């Protein structure tokens, strides 16, 4: 299978990239890892006449700690890097775990967080993980700049609020409160190289080591046209003493948030049942991680 013909640009600065993007508008696509785009181009699903590469833009592949309050992740940081980065593993656990389950090593070495978010596949790994953390996306065009909560970003399969002349330039994630633990569970057929049948990201914050749940975030993937938060289950959890029974109940409530489809990967019925099981399982894991929290 051959790639269609296209012009390739490798801007050395962000300004140049934004200028190219504004000039070319709908004819251009951004390429980072290319793990989705090149496949779609070979299948002739997409035929952009211009590709703009991010590989030379300074800082796009950096993970920068913002003292005491968060981390800025460049859009071209790879899943492999996220899965191994100690800061991400320690404080932003769901992102590291989800990145570690994305594809297989060869895919993770190329696939980027920006690409995974912007492609907005309903079953993608990183969106639910970002959604349980307080994540803001910075979008820039040649003339505008705005910041958007990740939860506001996804509109449908492959659709986001990003404009054709906008580029995702950074991802800021706020450091969770003390006594927070996170988890990410993915259900697919194989142990790796999978597209989720269901995935669940969870963040749980305790008052203290023995205390009640003061905050809970649950996001589910592959169960609706976009990843969704299980708000009702989160509300149920807040203020309660953590226990297996409470987590189980939260899982049951979580199912109500979902409208999974039946497709060749799995049926609606099975997906619903698994949302319940995996949510409660992820909550248990997050709880264990929260107990192990260290300043």
């Amino acid at each position, binding site marked *: 299978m051959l790639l269609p013909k296209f012009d390739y640009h490798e801007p050395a600065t962000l300004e140049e990239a934004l200028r190219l993007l504004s000039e070319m508008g709908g004819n251009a696509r951004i390429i980072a890892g290319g793990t989705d785009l090149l496949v779609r181009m070979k299948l002739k699903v997409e035929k952009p006449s211009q590709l703009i590469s991010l590989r030379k833009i300074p800082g796009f592949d950096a993970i920068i700690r913002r003292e005491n309050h968060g981390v800025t992740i460049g859009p071209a940081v790879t899943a492999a890097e996220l899965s191994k980065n100690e800061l991400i593993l320690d404080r932003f656990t769901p992102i590291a775990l989800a990145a570690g389950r994305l594809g*297989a090593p060869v895919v993770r070495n190329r696939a980027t967080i920006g690409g995974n978010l912007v492609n907005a596949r309903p079953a993608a790994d990183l969106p639910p993980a970002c959604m349980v953390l307080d994540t803001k996306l910075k979008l820039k065009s040649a003339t505008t700049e705005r910041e958007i909560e990740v939860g506001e970003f996804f509109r449908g399969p492959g659709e986001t609020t990003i404009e054709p002349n906008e580029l995702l330039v950074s991802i800021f994630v706020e450091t969770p409160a003390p006594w927070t633990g996170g988890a990410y569970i993915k259900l697919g057929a*194989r*142990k790796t*190289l999978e597209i989720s049948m269901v995935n669940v990201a969870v963040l749980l914050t305790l008052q203290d080591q023995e205390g009640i749940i003061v905050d809970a975030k649950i996001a589910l993937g592959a169960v609706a046209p976009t990843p969704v938060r299980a708000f009702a289950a989160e509300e149920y959890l807040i203020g309660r003493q953590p226990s297996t029974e409470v987590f189980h109940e939260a899982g049951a409530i979580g199912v109500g948030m979902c409208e999974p489809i039946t497709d060749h990967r*799995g*049926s609606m019925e*099975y997906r619903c049942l*698994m949302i319940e099981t995996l949510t409660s*399982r992820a909550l248990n894991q997050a709880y264990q991680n929260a107990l192990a929290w260290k300043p």
Partner: protein
Amino acid sequence: MGDYRVLNTRAPRIDGPAKATGQAKYADDFKMPGTLYAAILQSPIAHARILHIDTSKAKKLPGVKAVVTSREAGLIKYGVSPARYDETLFAHDKVRYVGDEIAAVAAFDQDTAQEALSLIKVDYEELPAVFDMFEAMKEGAPQIHNEFPGNMNAEVHQEFGDTDAALAACDLVIDHTFLNKRQDAAFIEPHSCLAVYEPSGRLTLYTSTQVPHYVMRTVAMTLQIPVGNVRVVKPYVGGGFGPKCEATPLEMSCGLLSKVTGHPVKMSYSREQVFLHSRARHQFYAEMSLGVMKDGTMVALKNKAVLDGGAYTSFGIATVYYSGSLLGGPYKLKSMKYDGYRVYTNKPACGAQRGHGGVAHRACFEQLIDMTAEKLGMDPIDMRLKNIMMTGDMTVNELDMSSLGMKECIEAIRKGSDWNNKKGKLPKGKGIGMACGFFVSGAGYPIYRSDTYHSTVVIKLSEDGGMANVLTGSAEIGQGSDTTMAMIAAETLGISLDNVRVYSGDTDYSVDLGAYSSRQTLMTGHATKEAAEEIKSKIALYLSQELNVPIASITFGDGIVKFDGGPGNFDKLRTNYIKEHRGWTDPPSGEYLTFREAARLAYLRAGTIVGTGKYKPPKLGGSYKGAAVGTSPAYGCSAQIVEVSVDLDTGQITVDGMTDAHDCGLAINKMSVEGQMQGSLSMGLGECLFEEVKFDSRGRIINPSLGEYKIPTALDMPKVKSIIVESNEPNGPYGAKEVGEGAIMPTIPAILNAIYDATGVRINELPVTSERLFMALKKNAEGAKI
């Protein structure tokens, strides 16, 4: 077992360095000046009448050199078995599946060829289609081939003994059904071919195939070229597993387009086209009853098969026979009845794949044995051992187990897996299961009726005497046959493996039916051995004349020649050799005459020294209809134990361990034997847990990619304990027989029996996805509540 120097070791593969360094050439790597690129137009509709084909626009596209349809190709019918030639290169009256070939183009580059395809206009009259094998058998179903009413492609009815009477006399009869799913072989290298038609009238195909010989015959027939003018060269091949066992429309189209244009023509299938061409594992439905006595003695087996064949026959006749014949062993039965039906549907044709025709029915049978053992309160291993066949036994359908280490295999895995301490003693969610199987070491008869040799081999010594060149038409497809032949030649000649070179996969080198039915080691191995022996006797003859010693006193081994076990007096030979090769870097030395010097003498006496070998099996099998299918000079057998963990809340299965024993006769190369064993397990695990080619309601494949068609990854494969059991096969070269396919036979039922052990739920439909198992567990729990 003899005292071998080369055989029975762990030899590094002779093609290893070329493959590891990227030097190995595959069909798609071949380039020639003036090459045109071809593409095939395939039907987007599953069943339709072709009303009109307009190629005029495509022909006018700049860069297009030729467009061919059935008008140019003719309507010569071909297939695998002459009994069912039901394909033409291009569809002319009807298309019968999404992917059916209609036209081919050759152009200066691939883009142009693809664009030309889009300019061919085909008018279709869509016909009702049928995609389900049971629907296809019903009255009033759409008819796919006029010649085969009721979509019945082939029917087999065999009975040995009076099965109904035998079942009626049994203490216990248990029934079971089983359904697998259509598989894809998922070889790493898609089909690829470069065809070169020369003005002399000679056509050469460089193609990714398992069977150069059959490709040569089919291409000669369909393109109407004298068979002596067709040469098929198989470069290195990235896997075949069965679907590359027949000539493809890709090969024939390249050949035809090269003939029409006078240019070399090249084409490679995309992965999607590999799925569309298919010819891989059928979908099988099995229905069985096993009758036993109270003490566990097996008496009678009733077996019914329905096969979803797809739109054409391919290997299907053999497949539908194998589903019956391969249950004749390895357990003693008094009677067996088989009814098989292969049905046409509007899907890509199915064919042969590793464990041809036997895998699904073996899975059903081995589950049935476990179910029976449970009812009788017997350990499944004891139940099998009670009924096991031994060397010299003949199955009820007249397959001769000339060697059979089945019992040894079972005992080896029982010990190797610590079965006795695990069976029945594992916690819920953990399970252990076992199964057995056997397979042919080469089909007893060629695909076409013929007295042909199945293998011939030529060995030619180099002029200096230092190198033995083995020329064979056999097909190295990744399984290691080149190394096997090199080892057999080296052992027989008494020289080191480094002094043998293998030239293979070329119909100009020798006759060889190819790599299918696990035949290369036994059949090509025999021919290689015979050729090497002829060389050895020629050298011995000339030595005896020259040195005036009796032939019987001369022995070969370790690269040297001995006379009555000692060095003898060969001074004048050495002096002559060194004189002739003055200034060369490697004069012969040492106390003994080297093979090189001896071979040089033979050359000086008689010119180039050539030895030839040949093999065909003796007449095998019974005289009933279809008796040929399942016959073989020898049978390999294997037993496996699988341990699983089941996540009872999700249905996810983890295969924790596999213990596998295989009787391959003498293990020529232990490393290759283990490789085949482990590869078989991986393929069986994939079929059991993940793999299924899925179609939408209009017959289009939903998952024609290795992203969505799921074969096991390294993380899905457990550590495998491979135990080689070596019987001495009287019909095999040096006692060797198969391992390439037999090893897959027990894998699926062993996993299924382990899942049952872990959960108490019997799964009789593949693949056992987490969803299928979870829903079955749920249903089982609900049933228990009521």
